[in-house]
């Protein structure tokens, strides 16, 4: 919490600081709770949002940003997804390791590489400035 400017309670604080530091980035990128949360949102998108990338992306952005992506943004996300999917298809062990992060079980009915790729895509989106500032 200190990394995220929680007041130390040694002085009265009227307005909490909001800083922007690499240590915070490390927490939201690498913290196992964040990875696990990403995985769950990814899994829901895969189960509930249909088969198309656009639908799944919309499912995620609606929940993270309360909006849909613009065409530009969608292009970027699609590019990232494509690259991640290729990487996880090439190394299924890596994908499985990612899905095992966190205490909860991963959904084994879903394809492994897809799940991993979407987990990392959601992890990316959860680190957007717009999401962190919501």
């Amino acid at each position, binding site marked *: 919490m*200190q*990394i995220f*400017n929680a007041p*130390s309670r*040694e*002085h009265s604080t009227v307005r909490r*600081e909001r*800083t*922007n*530091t*690499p*240590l*915070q*980035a*490390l*927490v939201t*990128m*690498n*913290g*196992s709770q964040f*990875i696990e949360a990403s995985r769950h949102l990814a899994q829901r998108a895969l189960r509930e949002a249909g088969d198309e990338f656009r639908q799944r992306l919309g499912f995620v952005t609606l929940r993270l940003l309360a909006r849909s992506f*613009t065409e*530009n*943004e969608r292009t*970027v*996300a699609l*590019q*990232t997804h494509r*690259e*991640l999917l290729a*990487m996880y298809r090439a*190394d299924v062990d*890596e*994908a*499985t*390791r*990612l*899905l*095992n*992060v966190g205490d909860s079980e991963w959904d084994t009915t879903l394809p492994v590489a897809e799940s*991993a790729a979407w987990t*990392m*895509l959601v*992890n*990316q*989106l959860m*680190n*957007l*400035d*717009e999401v*962190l*500032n919501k």
Partner: protein
Amino acid sequence: MTGSPMHPVKQAILNETRRQFFGQVAKGIGGLALSNLMADDLLALKQDTQSFGGLPSLPHFAPKAKRCIYLHMMGAPPQMDLLDYKPKMQSWYDKDLPESIRQGQRLTTMTSGQARFPIAPSIFKFNQHGQSGAWISELLPHTAKMADDLAIVRSMHTEAINHEPAITFIQTGRQIPGQPCVGAWFAYGLGSMNRDLPTFVVMNAEKSHPKSGVQAISAKMWSSGFLSPEYAGVGLRGGTNPVLYLQNPEGVSLDVRRKMLDGLGELNRIQHEQLGSPETLARIQQYEMAFRMQMAVPEMADLSSEPASTFERWGEEAKQQGKFQNAALMARRLVERDVRFVQIYHRGWDVHNDAPEVLRAQAKDVDRASWALIQDLKERGLFDETLVIWGGEFGRTIYSQGKLTPTDYGRDHHPRCFSLWMAGGGVQGGVVYGATDEFSYNIVENPVHIRDLQATILHLFGIDHERFTFKHQGLDARLTGVEEPARVVHELLA
């Protein structure tokens, strides 16, 4: 490009440069903001050293020191066994401390109940060393070898009598917590010289002997107080995760992380184009810095890149995580990489009991390592710009705590005088400053209060302690405080 794939980090750095170049061409002056490299260059123009962040008004004048390594001996080393030679005490063995010397000094509850205060002369031999002829104890043979590089202060004093307030005092300038510590002031005022590593790093070294007393260490000792939390010390831990959350999680390779960051940066940039918030750009920068830290911190902590000669100088203990020697070697590696402020807390100096036995072990761990550190700094041309400080939070009593025997004694806390040494970074070597009475109880010459030490440290970094302030709760707060005037001890400066 042909040949083997480029390392993802190199690729990323190249990509960043190309994107920024095109960004500037397309957007003209607006593109200037997008270029973190450009902005940093502009900032660096104000000083001859590259630095990032910090206040434009600092330093006030040309600094001697640019980096600091502060070796804090937690628990308070006994000055009369190490640096403050009191030969007359040999004839006072087991005699009571005269009231004329004690002058009603308050005692801790650990000894206030004693019926007697028998004097315990040091059982350690002292000799003179260097051209200055400084008297240094046999417990510190390596430190003695470099007597002419050191400024030894024998007349340090404080008001605090217990560890937590005393350490808080020497680190933050006030016994009551809530103030920023020295390192945080430096991070705030002078900024960083390195884009890949934290500006202010803290390490804890374990005690040296099973009987060493340990005191609690709390993060408030390296806290940023009322300054922004980004200036707090970053704890460097042992093991595979030297900085919390540094490592990518399982299943996330370097390549995956890089791809994720590429997309993230791009999406944030699109956002920035729409809304124009500078915070978004800062966010992009912080993520890139986090990525660089993921490379830079393990690289720094990886001792396998050190030649064998390093360990011939330092000893094999320098390889062992948790030991003081290891932390001090890390400190050298950190300042080599231009980290501004490094602090090591070495535990176990609180010799209420078993002082001779414990001190032998404690001193052994710090003595050779302190010497090796300074030799390393000199070899690398860093000594003149790196201030090294060694000392505790108060002194210890000449009278014995607990049973006194010819081979064993303990010492209680003593705020009225203690010893400390500084070296490098513009400090005058071969100086012994200040003196205590024959009992090492009261100061008789040139007292140096903790605030005076802090004012002097700031001065070495080119900062006038009275002008370096921060507005907080209506007060122009300073490291040296606003209640008592503090002086720069010019006799310690080269």
